[in-house]
């Protein structure tokens, strides 16, 4: 009995997922045959139908198809009739309850992953897509359409999480004793699914976002226009004092703003869109980066809260050390890109002595970054000379930086000496030869 109470929430959860995935099949007839209040009640009854089937199957050993189907039919008819009496709603209520009870009963005997395989998710989502597309042309369904959309979004979220989990477990090629996957792998996958859902959400909401942004942009533009406009604000005259539109002479129509102003307004709007898009992308990136840490912390906190020990990692038989590889941050790359753009604009200044020192430093940085990307473990505390020797010892670099180049770099970096064009050209030639 104790184990039954422990397993019932699982059966109900699985029932919720099944109902959510096949919600359109249930919901569309319900929308026409049920009253609004009964819909929610019936959905709750269905979830309990799963639990009832599961419990009955365990307690009364309903282990054959016939026994389970018989009891599902009996209970389905009784429950439906007690709720709806003799009405058209029975056409939906009876089959749906029988299905819920039957499947709940089967969950006791068969793994849910077998009972509800991967392609069922696809079928469920196709049902959502097809039904919502067709019903978007049916005005009679308009009051119920938003619920279908929300349920579709929830079904997608649930599907992505479950399919990802199943695929990770499947790819780990579990043995006979079931998959043993490190918690970190699951957390990172969940984090990536969340990031994916955020991207989907942003794209889906683009039309709305565009409207909001457009309104915001116009508000800011008008605020700026008001700020720079020295003329006092002209209040709109009361509506009743205005002459009728039909009586206005043609010449007194409000003059449209000049074309250049419209162009500037459009340009400002586009710039605004671009800035906001970059900002959103940057925030998404930052969020995706911090998400695993956040999830880890939440997981640790939850485990502590529930006094749960770390799961079966002892069975894995290994210890992991995870470290971050030294690399150039995205923001630095962006800055470098900007610098490069600026550099190309002022390429005529290349001959200046200060610029040579900067170029030597840039070259050194570039070589080092390339080596780091190839796998070299750079130690920050090493001097350029030590780094050069370390690179030689590393082996994969065939004389990446000569003594002469390092000497020149040291002078450019620490000596504040002006680097002549000849020295610059020599070092460039030497590097090209290598």
């Amino acid at each position, binding site marked *: 009995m104790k184990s039954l109470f422990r397993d019932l929430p699982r059966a109900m959860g699985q029932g919720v997922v099944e109902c959510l995935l096949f919600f359109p099949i249930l919901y569309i007839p319900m929308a026409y045959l049920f009253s609004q209040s009964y819909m929610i009640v019936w959905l709750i009854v269905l979830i309990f139908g799963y639990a009832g089937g599961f419990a009955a199957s365990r307690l009364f050993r309903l282990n054959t198809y016939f026994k389970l189907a018989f009891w599902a039919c009996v209970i389905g008819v009784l429950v439906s009739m007690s709720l709806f009496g003799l009405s058209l709603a029975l056409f939906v209520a009876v089959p749906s309850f029988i299905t819920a009870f039957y499947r709940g009963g089967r969950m006791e005997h068969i793994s849910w992953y077998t009972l509800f395989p991967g392609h069922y998710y696809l079928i469920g989502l196709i049902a959502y897509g097809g039904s919502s597309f067709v*019903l978007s042309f049916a005005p009679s369904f308009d009051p119920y359409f938003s619920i279908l959309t929300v*349920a579709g979004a929830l079904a997608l979220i649930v599907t992505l999480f479950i399919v990802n989990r199943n*695929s990770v477990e499947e*790819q780990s090629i579990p043995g006979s004793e079931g998959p043993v996957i490190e918690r970190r792998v699951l957390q990172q*996958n969940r984090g990536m699914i969340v990031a994916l859902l955020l991207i989907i959400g942003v794209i889906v909401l683009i039309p709305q976002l565009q409207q909001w942004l457009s309104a915001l942009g116009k508000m800011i533009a008008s605020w700026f226009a008001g700020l720079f406009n020295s003329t006092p604000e002209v209040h709109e005259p009361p509506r009743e004092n205005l002459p009728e539109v039909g009586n206005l002479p043609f010449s007194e129509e409000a003059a449209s703003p000049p074309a250049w102003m419209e162009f500037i307004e459009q340009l400002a709007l586009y710039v605004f869109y671009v800035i906001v898009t970059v900002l959103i992308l940057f925030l998404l990136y930052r969020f995706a980066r911090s998400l695993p840490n956040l999830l880890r912390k939440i997981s640790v906190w939850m485990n502590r809260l529930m006094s749960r020990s770390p799961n079966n990692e002892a069975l894995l038989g290994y210890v992991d050390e995870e470290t*971050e590889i030294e690399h150039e941050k995205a923001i630095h790359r962006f800055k470098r890109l900007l610098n490069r753009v600026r550099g190309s604009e002022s390429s005529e200044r290349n001959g200046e002595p200060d610029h040579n020192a900067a170029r030597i430093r840039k070259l050194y940085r570039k070589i080092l970054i390339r080596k780091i990307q190839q*796998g070299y473990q750079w130690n920050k505390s090493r001097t350029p000379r030590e780094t050069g020797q370390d690179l030689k010892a590393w082996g994969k670099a065939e004389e990446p930086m000569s003594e002469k180049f390092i000497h020149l770099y040291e002078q450019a970096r620490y000596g504040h000496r002006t680097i002549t064009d000849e020295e610059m050209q020599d070092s460039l030639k030497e590097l090209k030869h290598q």
Partner: protein
Amino acid sequence: MGAYWILLVAAVVLLVQAGLFRRFALRKLTYNRAFKVSTCFEGESLELIEVIENRKLLPVPWLRVESQFRMGIIFRGQRNLDISEGQYNQNHKSFFSLQPWTKIVRRHDVTAAERGVYRLGTVSMTSGDLISYHKVVRSFPLDGKLVVYPEPLDISEMSLPVQTWMGDMIVKRWIVEDPFLRSGTREYLDGDPLNNINWKATARSGSLQVHRRDATADYRIKLYLNIEDHELMWSKATRPEPVEYGIRLAAGIASHLLSQGMELGLGSNGSMEEATEFIDIPVSGGNEQLELIYESLAKLELSRILSFHDYLEQELHRLDGNHDILVLSTYMNDRLQSMLDRFKEEGHRVQVTILQEPGLKRKVAAI
């Protein structure tokens, strides 16, 4: 906006991520694995270290690294393994998920249960997208191996003839005396160097006494190991226990004798790993010789190239000089006996140890 729009966008995003991971998941991904030590003895624990680096901005949702090892090394987490049906190999897999610019060092606890050479071999990496719509596989070979030496049996308490081969053997006549061997004192003779005078003995006797030195000769021992588990063995040993015992015994004897400063060689009619030649290690001494013997014993396969009789016949013609021969064999019959008699006739001293199941009493037969 309807559910169809959300699902359409989701489908496109999922396809894009599938393509992205298909194209870039294994890019700038470096993987290496090595045993922490290159050699160890049977029963010792060691570490298998995997190092994986994701040197790019794109994370890797999942990555499976698979390889095959010979049976004989035991991973602590046996659920990490699939043992193939043949019982000769085991499939090892590691499962990772990598963040951008992340390095993972994974240390597996491993026990070397059986002697042998365990090569890292070919590793195949499989990765894919978040819903496993696409998968990409890359295989590459890895260098490196672990040589597991047989566990040398402690022979100090065994009644084996090797106990008698302690130190140098004194010979009656030789050209140069052994400067380290003092057998007593004698009267001073003309030509004896002054540093050879034993002053205490001189004081006791009242006449000049010098150290008496003897000439010595080293034992030259050749150990022959028969890998046939019975007389009528065809190609492979079907009862490997006594032969494995013999291999451990040979390792113990080699360790014992070479540590005493003696010289030892090894021969066997078994084949070496990936070779069609016998083990033939000439008689020599020192630590290098011991390592060579250990390694050869580690590589020894339980399949014969020649019957032990024929092998010994071949050896009889090859062996130069007189040797002390120790034969480790699971059986002895008339043919072998007559062959060993021929060794004796050639001036060699021959001793035979019959190998039986470990734990049973060992019979030592001296001929």
